[in-house]
């Protein structure tokens, strides 16, 4: 008659041990996941910022290099556009502006060129020229050409 009670007590102990192990695991995993998630979120913003800075500086520096190489000079850059870029435009021929979304709002990342930049006239309205192909993530081929004695053209191919 004692046997069934022994079996029941043993099962109860194993259940309790199981629950304790699971509880301890959760107590470790939940805060660790939270901390690492926050770290990675901030790191990804810094990575996006670094990537778009490399893209912007690359375009502006190459536009100046090609311009001073003389009319007809051209080159093609392969650039990696990061996620979170919602628009790209040239303002007044000297500001290359990327709109970047972050967890704390949209920021405009601006690069200033020493030479006049332009793009296809169909994308230009007054002093603002849109670069729609640079507003989506992925690898982009950007052709930079000294189209005349006044400016370098920036187009995606």
């Amino acid at each position: 008659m004692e046997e069934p009670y022994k079996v029941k007590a043993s099962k109860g102990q194993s259940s309790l041990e199981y629950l304790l192990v699971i509880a301890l695991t959760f107590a470790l995993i939940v805060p660790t996941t939270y901390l690492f998630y926050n770290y990675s979120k901030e790191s990804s913003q810094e990575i996006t910022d670094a990537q778009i800075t490399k893209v912007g500086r690359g375009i502006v520096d190459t536009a100046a290099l090609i311009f001073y190489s003389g009319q007809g000079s051209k080159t093609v850059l392969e650039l990696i556009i990061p996620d979170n870029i919602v628009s790209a435009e040239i303002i007044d021929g000297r500001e290359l502006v990327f709109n970047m979304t972050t967890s704390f709002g949209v920021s405009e990342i601006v690069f200033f060129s020493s030479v006049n930049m332009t793009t296809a006239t169909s994308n230009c309205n007054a002093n603002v020229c849109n670069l729609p192909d640079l507003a989506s993530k992925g690898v982009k081929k950007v052709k930079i050409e000294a189209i005349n004695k006044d400016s370098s053209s920036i187009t995606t191919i």
Partner: protein
Amino acid sequence: MGKNGQAALEYLTTYGWAFITISVTIGALYYFGVLDFSKYLPQNCIFPSQLRCLDFSLRVPNVNVKLINNLGEDIKVTSMQITNDATPPISCTPPAVPFDWVHAVEKDFIFASCSGGAYLSDSRVELKISITYYAINTPSNPVHLINGKINGRAI
């Protein structure tokens, strides 16, 4: 059916106390901030690299932040605002604008006499700073916006 009901009742009376005790304990831990894991996160100040954040301090009732103009251009700052997600949000006296900011120069900004926004000593806060500016040498003076974030413990 009667035996099943009795077993269920016995189960609840045996373990119900355990559930209540655990719930109250977790509630107390949450209330006293033990489960607020955000306090274990490092304090930081994140701005785009063009107006990099060099340093900050959260001394109630002021917020101090040091930024550097990495744009490579002289700019004129037209507005500076600070806010957060609390209700009501933090409200401070921003630095006087407009002002010129030469490139590669560091500047200290003080948001003074802050109120609201749960900005209290020894509390963890996340503040959003918005800055608008335009480049002095660009003919049409297009205004640009930069957002940054300060996450830290007020003292």
